[in-house]
């Protein structure tokens, strides 16, 4: 049996004593990238993004023609919906907060549980989810083919007017890649403008990268490494554990970006918190101690002044609303 050849020294977890202390994290580690990445299989073009924008705002992508992608990823709500539970999920068990689609060009895993590996793969999921757009792809493609006005846009984006599932998802992914956070005061500070953020916010940055160690997971210019952790919330939702049945993935959800946070939340995957102070206090406390809780959840204590400094820092990551005008939809 070929499995006999898979000799594995599992369980040999050997402390070797070479763990290294974290290097000090400087502001340069959060510098914004110059370009938007896209995969070789779907290079970003203006034509595809323009088509994707029409599709994103088109309610005809839902079965009853009432819900578009922009209904829940609304430009005026930081490309989320500000709701908990999300629209249509009032009776859905373990409903999850609608994440923003800002900066999704850089995501390594999509959805709260990481079950989609690319924007192209993710694009189909809300369309076909019963409590969201509740459609099916064959019927959607047939509907789009009946809309004459779409054909030239598909031709401009892909060379001919064929409307296929692959092209719809590629166009939607392309538009979403163009949704990038505006430069925030923090970015100006990174570029050397010392007056861009307050002294309290600078102190907050030191806490973020030091005592509170938020940077353990909230790193890079997006302030996330897209990692999955159980942070000790009381939600019964198994999260990534439903797909990856190993202990550390039970109750684990993707680390969200901290850019452009809505002022009053809701925060966390279950939308259970409504202020940054509440969020910070949760991390100070460490949440529910259980086997799956992330080893990065190390309780700490802040003074009121430190907590406020951390909040002041997080506010410097807000570049303001990314305004995108809704397109004229093809007829």
């Amino acid at each position: 049996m070929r499995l006999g050849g898979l000799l594995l020294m599992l369980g040999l977890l050997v402390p070797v004593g070479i763990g290294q202390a974290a290097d000090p994290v400087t502001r340069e580690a959060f510098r914004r990238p110059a370009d938007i990445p896209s995969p070789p299989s779907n290079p970003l073009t203006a034509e595809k993004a323009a088509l994707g924008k029409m599709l994103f705002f088109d309610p005809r992508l839902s079965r009853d023609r009432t819900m578009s992608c922009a209904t829940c990823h609304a430009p005026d709500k930081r490309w989320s919906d500000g709701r908990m539970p999300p629209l249509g999920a009032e009776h859905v068990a373990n409903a999850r907060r609608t994440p923003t689609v800002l900066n999704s060009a850089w995501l390594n895993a999509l959805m709260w549980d990481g079950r989609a590996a690319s924007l192209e793969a993710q694009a189909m999921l809300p369309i076909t989810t019963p409590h969201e757009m509740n459609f099916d792809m064959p019927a959607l493609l047939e509907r789009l083919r009946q809309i004459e006005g779409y054909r030239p846009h598909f031709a401009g984006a892909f060379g001919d007017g064929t409307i296929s599932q692959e092209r719809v998802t590629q166009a939607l992914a392309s538009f979403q890649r163009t949704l990038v956070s505006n430069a925030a005061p923090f970015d100006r500070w990174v570029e050397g403008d010392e007056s861009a953020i307050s002294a309290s916010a600078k102190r907050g940055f030191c806490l973020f990268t030091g005592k509170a160690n938020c940077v353990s997971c909230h790193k890079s210019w997006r302030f996330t490494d897209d990692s999955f952790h159980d942070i000790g919330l009381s939600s019964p939702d198994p999260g990534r554990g439903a797909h990856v049945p190993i202990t550390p993935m039970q109750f684990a959800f993707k680390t969200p970006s901290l850019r452009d946070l809505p002022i009053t939340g809701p925060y966390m995957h279950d939308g259970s918190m409504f202020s940054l102070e509440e969020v910070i206090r949760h991390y100070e406390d460490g949440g529910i101690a259980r086997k799956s809780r992330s080893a990065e959840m190390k309780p700490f204590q802040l003074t009121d002044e430190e907590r406020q400094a951390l909040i002041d820092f997080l506010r410097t990551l807000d570049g303001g609303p990314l305004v995108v005008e809704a397109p004229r939809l093809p007829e």
Partner: protein
Amino acid sequence: MIRNMKEGIRRGNLLVMQVMTACMLTVLCAMQPAQAEGAPQHRMILSHHEFEPWDFTPKVGDRIEIVNTSDIVHSIYITYPDGAVLTLGDVQLPGQSVIWEVPAAGEYLFKCWIHPVINARMQVQPD
């Protein structure tokens, strides 16, 4: 479990199927006798969010030690050439190592359940 795996395939639930494969491999492999001491051993360094480039040429039967030199926890899994997935223990704490033996020629993909950004491919040539 095999029935469940086939069900997973039939339903297209690839990830669940793969992890179940990993669980099965884990159980079976844990019962295997220990590897002969003389097998060549190499070291892969897992720094914060990436595997550092390695300069060894892996061969079938070699032992590979994966060392977590970062200050965060990882959970490494390997996707085999046939799509089977093997999780190298639940978590790998900072400073710890795991040892894996190359079972056959082909391309192996190393990833982390916690940090999807970690991604390394290893090509093993036939003897």
